[in-house]
């Protein structure tokens, strides 16, 4: 069973899953780091991203490679409404902010259920080719997912590392008071951060809708995975989210291959619990301050 092709397959699947998890978790961890809000609506934005892609492809006949980013940006723009009317008043108020995002996510999910219906749909496969690299089987759509995720993540890291707004966001995440003392306009960066975070989630939602299925309730699982990823990586840590996502993807892929899906689920919960017990601040995070 433990042969080279199997291992390679595990790696390919793991990296694929990991890429999607990273896309989800980055926005989640960013919103927490900058605004101190546990955004329970993050999964609902992913769901909207899935539907945006679906309608752009099916009704507007936009080509896939354009529809995917376009859908993500549309959802990101829509998320600014939620920022304006719900979240803006609750920044740095962890408990109330969390409950409000739960309410927000309910509104989004059940409105989607009314508008789109509850039946599952799927985004039709755009790429059906399958590649054989020696003994390795790689469907084209997985390669595309990987490519898109890689490009997005690269852009994201470049933005955060080398641009002024990116720097400002990192400063605001690290210490808000210092950021404001340096003349950083926090409100504007909150909006920008929320826009980016929701767009990333929507992009992940589109990819999930393509690889798996689309329904108003599809956001729950990716939300859960982002929780696990940020716990592994440390809340608020962007490199932590990247490493945590990859780790979770690989772990799930290998455990599923060797022990079956249900054991893999239990084991990944177990691993997270272990990490939390041994290193409560996550693998790469800082300890929560006593408030």
């Amino acid at each position: 069973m433990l042969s080279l092709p199997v291992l390679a397959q595990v790696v390919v699947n793991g990296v694929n899953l990991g890429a999607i998890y990273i896309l989800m978790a980055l926005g989640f961890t960013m919103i927490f780091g900058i605004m101190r809000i546990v955004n329970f609506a993050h999964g609902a934005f992913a769901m909207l991203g899935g539907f945006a892609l679906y309608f752009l492809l099916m009704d507007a006949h936009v080509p896939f490679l354009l529809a995917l980013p376009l859908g993500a940006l549309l959802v990101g723009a829509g998320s600014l409404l939620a920022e304006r009317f719900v979240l803006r008043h609750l920044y740095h108020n962890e408990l109330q902010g969390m409950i409000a995002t739960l309410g927000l996510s309910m509104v989004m999910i059940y409105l989607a259920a009314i508008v789109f219906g509850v039946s599952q749909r799927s985004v039709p496969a755009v790429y059906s080719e399958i590649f054989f690299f020696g003994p390795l089987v790689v469907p084209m759509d997985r390669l595309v997912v990987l490519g898109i995720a890689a490009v997005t993540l690269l852009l994201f890291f470049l933005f955060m590392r080398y641009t002024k707004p990116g720097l400002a966001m990192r400063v605001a995440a690290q210490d808000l008071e210092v950021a404001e003392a340096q003349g950083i306009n926090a409100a504007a960066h909150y909006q920008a951060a929320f826009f980016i975070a929701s767009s990333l989630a929507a992009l992940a939602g589109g990819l999930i809708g393509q690889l798996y299925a689309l329904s108003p309730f599809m956001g729950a699982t990716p939300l859960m995975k982002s929780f696990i990823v940020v716990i592994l990586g440390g809340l608020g840590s962007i490199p932590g989210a990247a490493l945590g996502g990859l780790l979770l993807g690989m772990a799930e892929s290998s455990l599923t291959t060797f022990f079956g899906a249900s054991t893999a689920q239990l084991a990944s919960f177990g691993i997270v619990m272990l990490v939390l017990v041994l290193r409560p601040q996550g693998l790469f995070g800082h300890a929560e301050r006593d408030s």
Partner: protein
Amino acid sequence: MTARPAMTAAAADNRGSRFSASHMSAVAVIVVMAAWPGAIASSESFLLYVGTLVVLYSVGAMSLHLVFRMGQVSFAHAAFLGIGGYTSALLLTGSGLSWPLAFCASGLVSGLFGLLLGPIVLRLRGVYFVLFTFILCEFAERVFTDWGSLTNGAGGVAGIPAPPAFSSPVSFYYLCLGVAVLCALICRGVLKSDVGEAIDAIRTSESLAESNGVPVFRIKVAIFAISCLLVGFQGALQASFVHYISPASYTFDESLRFVVMNVIGGMNSLWGPVLGSVFIIALPELLRNWVEYQWVLYGVVLVLAMRYLPGGLYELGERASALLRKGGA
């Protein structure tokens, strides 16, 4: 994450007269709840059903209030509700144990799990505690589903009997009411005792409490275990009320419901979770005419409440009574 004590000025002013007022409202609530079946007996069993649910959920919500008072928000309460539910359901249907014994066992087993898991969970604080308890809740649901040989998996356990002496809906309602009043007395006793003061100290500043000689960690674990014990009782009652349980009865939505009851009701008083359970159970029923939009409206109410009423319904009541007093004077 700390639950902020947002005592209103009016509440602080009326500290002296509050105890008697609080006693009076407690008596009033119990009288109303006791008269509930009589008042509606002629009309519908549906209202009795809703009333029973309200009383049942107030048990779990009050038990979670204890954890809230320590400044922690737990999303794992559905797991302990489930442990209680499965314990009594399996004992009743499997071994034919008598109902009172199964009932006691359900609380004890759930409390024992709280005692075992508490030392692990309570090492975490703030958001990590929230996320971990969330994962714990999902984990428990998986175990209920996957451990088929014990729990019968996703099929659930059917035919859970009600206690023989309380088999009519009205008498079962009174049984639940009795348990809820007992639970309220226990919670109140804890909060009014020295331990209660220690809890408030822990919420305000854990390190300060620690340096003043409060055995912080031991108190936290003990309170957590008591909270799990109480919600376990709700699990047993609920299983006998519905006669059927499955992993789907103990999803994250249940945990969420307990948390929302506390937040909407108000976190600074034991009245909060009681008001919250009335509101949260009754609200979807009130919205029944707009079945389609029921959950959307529920979400809207949550968002609005967080924005305009961060102190919950309890604060609203306090504000109203302060206004009334001002008008009267």
